[in-house]
């Protein structure tokens, strides 16, 4: 694990982007759907909720669609795509010798603060992704490539939201 000194550098962003574009194209070409991430996490969560408290699922229309009655929330391609994504990250991290338990942050905040902010940011991301019916992968990347108007509007909104508040959080990162 402690091999960060020999960690290989990240790919040139344009090369990485080209590879990502080819993967995205193949996803569309083979399956007709694009890529995604938040949908898989959503279904994993619903699976756990269904195991813990199935009555609750049946009372919430939004959850009912995925896990009502006998339907298995894990019986969806997006779940397998998501699991694959984690393994892909693991493989690439091993090949690039970039596996390391660490916390990435600016020097002015503690690890604890960073974790707390990561949780808050994640919660906002999760909430926003459900509201927008997609995350940066499913909406911005996939929807952008197939020219959906909503996806492009969404994409600009994400960048706008982040740039608008970047100044106030500069100490977290710099």
């Amino acid at each position, binding site marked *: 694990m402690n091999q960060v000194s020999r960690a290989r550098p*990240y*790919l040139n*962003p*344009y090369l*990485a*982007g*080209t590879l990502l*574009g080819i*993967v995205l*194209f193949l996803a*569309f070409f*083979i*399956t*007709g759907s*694009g890529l995604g*991430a*938040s949908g898989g*996490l*959503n279904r994993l969560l619903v699976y756990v909720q269904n195991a813990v408290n199935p009555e609750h699922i049946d009372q919430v229309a*939004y959850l009912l669609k995925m896990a009502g009655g006998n339907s298995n929330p894990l019986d969806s391609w*997006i779940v*397998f*795509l998501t699991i*694959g*994504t*984690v*393994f*892909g*990250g693991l493989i*690439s*991290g091993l090949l690039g010798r*970039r596996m390391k338990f660490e916390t*990435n*942050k*600016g020097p002015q905040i503690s690890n604890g603060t960073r974790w707390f902010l990561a949780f808050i*940011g*994640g919660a*906002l*991301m*999760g*909430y*926003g992704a*459900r*509201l*927008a*019916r997609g995350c*940066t*992968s*499913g*909406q911005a990347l996939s929807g*952008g490539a*197939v020219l*959906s108007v*909503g*996806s492009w509007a969404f994409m600009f*909104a994400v960048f706008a*939201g*982040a740039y608008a*508040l970047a100044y106030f959080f500069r100490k977290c990162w*710099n």
Partner: protein
Amino acid sequence: MANFPLPLADLFGHWGSYVVYAVIGIAFGMTLESAGFGNSKLLAAQFYFKDMRVFKVMFTAIIVAMTLIFLSSALGLLDYNLIWVPPTYLWPGIVGGLIMGVGFIIGGFCPGTSLVGLATGKLDAFAFVFGVLFGIYMFGETVGSFATFFDSSFMGRFTLPELFNTSYGLIVFVIVVAALMIFVLAEKVEAMVNDRPQQKLPGWSKPAAGALVALAAVVLVIGQPSSEDRWQVVADESLARLDERAVQISSAEFLKYRDDTKIKIIPLDVREERYYNQFHLRGAVHVPLDQVQAKAKELQFEPANTVFVTISNDETAATEAWKILRAESVPNIYILEGGINGWLKSYAGDSLGEENRVYNRQEDQLAYKFKSATGSRHPAAEPSPDHLDLDYEPKVILELKRAPTSGGCG
């Protein structure tokens, strides 16, 4: 076009097809990680103009995938109608996007990148993923209180070329050129902000950019398949099925599916409005022939167990509508055998006598006169089950190959 998208479930079985998705996921995760997206500090640097990696990777991916998708579509290798285009819910999308942008700068990841961060041991990614799960949970609990907003400003499958009323080729070309120009700008901004000379781009970058522009130009020149082109692809097979009368379903079969809770049947009445007003089947959707083309997109969103039945007075207009929908890749379309005239003959025997008959009528005209616009209030609009003559040759075969009804975030 015939083999798009690949019938994965037929090839590998229901769960077996998921292996394909897992492999695609692995490729996705590998590219994200090797792009540096497992590192939140590197992602956040985007928003201080220090390292515009997020922007570069994302837009490179979009222009490469977009060009390949529309090139394949232009060459007839892929059917754009069967591609999942996230439907536009404008305001929920924008508000959700703003919230996500805020989440991005606070949390340092987006859901996809946090997964590869987690996979490579980044502790802040662990915290982030738990946050995402909590956010999703909170959404499920609260969405009921703003359901109206969540479903507002729905525009369906709405694309940029439709918004700007121009061709797909032109939009693809403009986006590719604009993105490349913005990349040049991004390099300058990075150099300025970091107070260093501009980074030297690898030798392949200019030829690669040139090749992409050339491909986009090819997309622009070839253009996307017209309705006529699309029809030509399916014409032979479709005409044969029409000749064999394999798609003309009897009224008895129609009535059987109408009462079948497993099948959603949508009758599409393609006649002129005056005919529709005089008499139509209960539940029939009025789509005049000249609007069928535009309606096709909407029909793609119906669930997989939907059967569409085109209806005219005889079969002429219904057959035209059937051809249009076939060319647009709408699955499970059938024609009502004998049309409304045949229907009335079977089910309106008592109420429409000899004095109502129209003689010397032309093809596809209504064979009966109605004194008033009875619409679907006429008893024959919904024959009682006693009328059901169960003897018929079943023709409907549910075809499950259709446009995906959910995308990556479903």
